[in-house]
């Protein structure tokens, strides 16, 4: 799985951080998404899929 984020679309709702805290974080100065792991291990895939599904701004894309 490869995770791609779009920081321009992000609205800082924080949903991804709650769904998959080992993969997503928020920038200290503006709360916009940062990617901690662009190739997360298999055991986190469900969490990452949930994060992508609930992101209100469609700022997370998954490949593979």
């Amino acid at each position: 799985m490869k995770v791609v984020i779009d920081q321009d679309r992000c609205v800082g709702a924080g949903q991804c951080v709650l769904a998959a805290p080992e993969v997503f974080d928020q920038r200290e100065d503006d709360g916009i998404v940062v990617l901690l792991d662009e190739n997360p291990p298999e055991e986190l895939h469900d969490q990452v899929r949930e994060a992508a599904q609930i992101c209100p701004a469609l700022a997370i894309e998954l490949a593979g």
Partner: protein
Amino acid sequence: MTEALSSSSQAVSDAREPEFPMSRGRCPFDPPPELERRLHDEPVSRVRIWDGSEPWLFTRYEDVRALLRDSRVSADTDLPGYPPQSPGVAARRKRAKAFISMDDPDHASQRRMLTADFMVKKVERLRPRIQKIVDELIDDMLAGPKPADLVQAFALPLPSLVICELLGVPYEDRALFHRLSKVLISQEATPQQSLDAVEELLAYLSRLVEQKLKDPGDDVLSRLATEQVAAGTMTADDVAAMGQLLLVAGHETTANMIALGTVALLEHPEQLDLVRDGDAALIANAVEELLRYLTIVHTGRRRVALADMEIAGQRIRKGDGLIAASDVANRDAEAFPDPDKLDVTRKARHHVAFGYGVHQCLGQPLARVELQVVYSTLYRRIPTLKLAAPLAELDFKHDMLVYGVHSLPVTW
């Protein structure tokens, strides 16, 4: 007499009375039966609102999400065709305009001034402070007379204190903003009452912003004053409009979730037992489920179409009003099996109680932490908590834009 009454009510319905918002049925937690019927039989339909216009009403979970994330729809309350929630909302739409009623790029630039304040890790740092406030409010309530009104003793003070500290609004002024906020979220306030309330609140907050410019503190209004007003990028009135949104949204919604959530749990004792004995993960889950089940923003998320388009298989014309009924969407069996059942163990995080799309609630991490602390503390500290009036006699907020109870008599 009976005949006269029935013939006059006939006349009123012939005069095309509004169909939306709809009346709830017997269960105070369920969406209106007619809304449930449309979800099943007519998922996208026209509905007449107070001003006589007939916006499209979307009821299915996936359709609500599709509508709210579509960049061809606008949240701009000034555009022709936008369906205002009430005469009061319509009257004040040119005043106090903040990012909730703007489109990108203006929306994004204002919202990004605040995203750091409400991000998950920032709000987590407030958890000990929120826990302390919750414990002290419960101490005070237990030391006072019973029955008590849980709204005044607990549900309203907690989020009011927290948002005041965050924004830098003196909590001593709560009588003023509680009074004005009540007018602003009333569906029945007249246009004049609504305008007067918004002017009074903006004047109060503008004065506060001017003070913060001279003597800034460590709070959101001070930061907006020193970074935006001082630089000339925003006026004190613009910051007041943002402050008004944060202040009202920051306490009304959470207060209603605390009180109405407590009623729902007391009426579902097996769920209350799970919450009372639950670990942090179960509590977090219970918060999501109660947000879904109660969906207190119950008059729909409003938009207007910017172009001719098709959403959920429906042809929409430019300028058509659009209502996303998130309350009934959260009862769509396609998204939530056995949707009318309150089940604090279900997966519910994908609910649309905070809306969806770029306008999804900015303060949701704060609301979550406040509710987690409340639900994990209140019923453990007061295990015998119970209603001091029958459910049917509670004063539910059918008249407000945010659902809940006006007061909640409890004893223990």
